[in-house]
């Protein structure tokens, strides 16, 4: 009985020690004594980072070539910006580049292709064209993401931000229609030219928040 009393006192003492340590510390008694013991689980904090991963959605039509265009023709192609990462995309910028030996279609500021990018407040409706491309209409309100400018301007500067673009949450997407127009005033020197334009979209994270 007295032995048990002693043990109780020890138990009270070890409880006090544990409270002070607050980290799950073993308390031992002297040799030959058994004691009560208690251990708190290890404290841990898991921190993982988000990923920003921009991919092209299945609705994208940028790779569809446009054949036999003439002055006055316009080429609309859709880019579906998919956020397949875990972080929110805050901004998307666009730049263009051309292969070696670029033609007047991309080197002339006046006669070259004119570029414009637009978004739609609802969704774009695609209409198939005989040549394999599509034209796009917006049942809502269109917004200019990049105002009309010569395509060479899109290549000559640093990537141009798509203005007015909503943030793209993980799993979300945003459709942008890119339009190229060959000026109606172009003459015969623009006949039979072939030009490939490489677009690079760069997505950056949304502003940091307290997670």
């Amino acid at each position, binding site marked *: 009985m007295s032995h048990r009393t002693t043990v109780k006192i020890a138990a009270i003492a070890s409880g006090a020690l544990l409270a002070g340590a607050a980290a799950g510390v073993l308390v031992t008694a002297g040799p030959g004594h058994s004691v009560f013991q208690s251990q708190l689980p290890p404290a841990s904090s898991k921190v993982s980072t988000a990923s920003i991963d921009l991919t092209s959605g299945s609705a994208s039509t940028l790779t569809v070539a446009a054949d036999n265009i003439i002055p*006055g023709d316009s080429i609309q192609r859709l880019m579906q910006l998919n956020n397949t990462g875990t972080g929110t995309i805050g901004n998307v910028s666009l730049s263009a580049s051309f292969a070696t030996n670029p033609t007047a279609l991309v080197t002339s500021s006046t006669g070259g292709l004119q570029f414009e990018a637009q978004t739609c407040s609802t969704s774009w409706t695609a209409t198939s064209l005989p040549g394999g491309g599509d034209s796009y209409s917006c049942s809502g309100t269109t917004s200019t993401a990049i105002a009309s400018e010569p395509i060479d301007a899109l290549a000559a500067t640093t990537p141009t931000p798509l203005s007015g673009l909503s943030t793209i949450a993980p799993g979300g997407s945003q459709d942008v229609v890119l339009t190229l127009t060959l000026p109606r005033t172009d003459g015969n020197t623009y006949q039979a030219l072939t030009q490939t334009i490489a677009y690079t979209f760069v997505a950056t994270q949304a502003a940091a928040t307290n997670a």
Partner: protein
Amino acid sequence: MKIGMQKKPLLLIAGAVATVGALALVQTGAGYSVFSSAQAKTTTANTGTIALTVGTNSGASFSQAVSAMAPGDYSEHEVILTNTGSVGASVVSIAAMPSNCTVAGTSTACSSTPLVAGDVASPPMQLFAQTCPSGTITPSEMGTTGAYTYACSSTWSTVLGAAVTVGGTLTTPTSGSVGYASYTGSPATGSIASATPLTLPTTTNAQGVSEVLPPGGSVDVVLTSYLPSTVDNVFQNNATTLNYTFTITQRAGEAK
């Protein structure tokens, strides 16, 4: 035992440092990088062509000269206009300008605006252009002159005016011995000094855009030059070379 109690917190701190490092808010110089991702795509565009070739069915030269015309005579020349380009044409035009003008057997400079303001060396010949849309055109050589006349198996369709006058209002000459002064010609009813469209039937392409000559399409046209029977002696022994220019113009723009 106390040592063990101290190591645990140390390990936790070390772990926290390592985790922060993995967040990768990497500093570059004075600024900060952010997470980003890029996606590249290419679009290829190629421009089409519009090209016109001129030919004939009969083998007669379009440049065949016409000589010794008298009032009331006419001459016919056939031309087949083909769009050998890759895009359709919406307009086919014709223009005619005189050169090498001769008045009463004497070489004379043509007017700087011969078909508009009038050119004494360019008689008011009338020009017609016709097609045979529902049939075929058959040439017949007239004697051995190399000149041809043409027949339509169906009904002719006039595609250039009912009477377009080649030449403008004749002005009264201030000098000369060919007696122009007595001539008071009628004003021209038209001029084709500049490109004048032929009124050809239109079709629509796959996107509903109007065309008169689709890629590969052609039109067979007979041009008739007519010296009105009303002209008088003032036009004797005159000559001119008419230079015809045929032009096709691309269709309107469309979405591609």
